[in-house]
């Protein structure tokens, strides 16, 4: 009855305990994203030191999928270079849209997002943080 494929434990865990949520006043860059179908909003903050991401935060409101996905993003981006962040963003997007991609490890939290693929409407929710990141990286 309860959909384990979509609501995997790791997703609910991120949703209930989002990592790095809140504004980042001294961010080097930020971008706002919105899902016009449902009204979900997100703001993404990056703080860089040279080419390297030293802090990431997100703020906003949305469903478990969009919030968990954003929370995972903040964790995964920490310490990457901007180029690595771009590659990760492309990999997650490919996974969610069914394009060829290098799979994530079984125990990588991001792997839990793969279940969303079977729920076409929710793909946009999972993508929200990542398309906002895409726009932010393009703007640099």
């Amino acid at each position, binding site marked *: *009855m*309860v*959909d384990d494929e*979509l*609501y995997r434990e790791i997703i*609910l865990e991120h*949703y*209930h305990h989002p990592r790095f949520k809140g504004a980042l006043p001294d961010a080097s860059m930020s971008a706002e994203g919105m899902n016009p*179908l*449902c*009204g*979900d*909003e997100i703001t993404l903050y990056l703080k860089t030191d040279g080419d390297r991401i030293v802090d990431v935060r997100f703020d906003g*409101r*949305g*469903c*478990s*999928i969009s*919030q968990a996905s954003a929370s995972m993003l903040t964790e995964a981006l920490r310490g990457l270079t901007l180029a690595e962040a771009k590659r990760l963003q492309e990999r997650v997007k490919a996974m969610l849209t069914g394009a060829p991609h290098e799979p994530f490890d079984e125990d990588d939290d991001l792997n839990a997002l793969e279940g969303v693929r079977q*729920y076409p409407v*929710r793909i946009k*929710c999972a993508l929200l943080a990542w398309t906002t990141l895409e726009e932010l990286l393009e703007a640099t």
Partner: protein
Amino acid sequence: MTVDINTTYDVQAIRADFPILQRRIGSYPLIYLDNAATSQKPRQVIDALVHYYEFSNANVHRGLHTLAEEATEAYETARAKVARFIGAEPESLVFTRNTTEAINLVAYAWGLANLREGDVVVLSEMEHHSNIVPWQLVARLTGAKLHYVPFTSDGELDSDALEQTLRLEPKLVAITHVSNVLGTVNPVEEITRKAHEAGARVLVDGAQAVPHKPVDVRRIGCDFYAFSGHKMLAPTGIGALYARRELLEQMPPFMGGGSMIRKVTHASSTWADVPTKLEAGTPNIADAVALGAAVDYLQAVGMEAIQQHERQLTEEALRLLDGEEDIEIYGPRNASRRCGLVSFNFKHVHPHDAAQILDQRGIAIRAGHHCCQIIMRKLDVTATARASFYLYNTIEEVRTFWKALDDVRKVFGKHGGR
């Protein structure tokens, strides 16, 4: 269809007319509570479509052959039925795709001709985007200004604020008859009277009213009234605009093309009589005919009976949800002040997640901003869940829906765990 409004309301007989209600979602029977988005269609409406295409299909108005005469007759008979259903004469009823096109028609044809820089258009904060964005577009083209009447914490239109706004001598008041989020039934008769006293024209968005309650445009007294067929048992792709005949006659056309002209020369053209002047190109003939069949169906059941039945469902839903401390209900608490829908939210679960889990029990509700972002911002949410009822829903379905909310809690915890 064996319904008789003089006996009891036979919801099972009605359900038997709707083939889709036999459907199962996974292993659960479909419980369709997304009627404010679009309604399901009875056999009689589907049959009207099939019969038209198998028997009389032709283009209308310009043909001399038998099929063209039959198609024209069927199309104009449907117009007369739909007009009569809302208390109008056929010449005052323009077929459109939906409510949205009907309002855009007024915004472009009447608006571009009548609005000037600085003119005031009054809307409310409970309008659907379809009754906001057309006015923003036309305001940009004309320089007119938009004023929004707020709603109170009960979800009722703020009548003091309305009266103040009317002192600005607006050219138009455009207001929804029933809110698709709050369920509020606005006093459009009284609003029209006051707006007319202030010298304004009045447009009423009837998308959520015509399907659910008796509507008489003459009694309301409004200048324009818009509604959609697909929310009242008819196919997608057909709706209507009522307009007072003299306004239709004075208005320039909206779209240009076949049928709507009298004489075309290189430099300019003259227009056909109303309502044809406002219907350019080949109309959606078959769906108009099927809208006629939908009106027949609704009248056979009786709009009073439908309204009464929906009120019972709404009362039950409000009663059940009101007892839940983790749920917030939006809009008037009194079922007699609203139409058949209830918007709500879990305090700790996003409505997307709630809707998704209910879907796994075969229960279709809607979650989102419902094309009302301004309401969402006022309620300080990004989205709500909404259960909306129609003539074929049952008290048992309402209860099953309510019980299924426990499944949501099972996934997300009683307090969302957050």
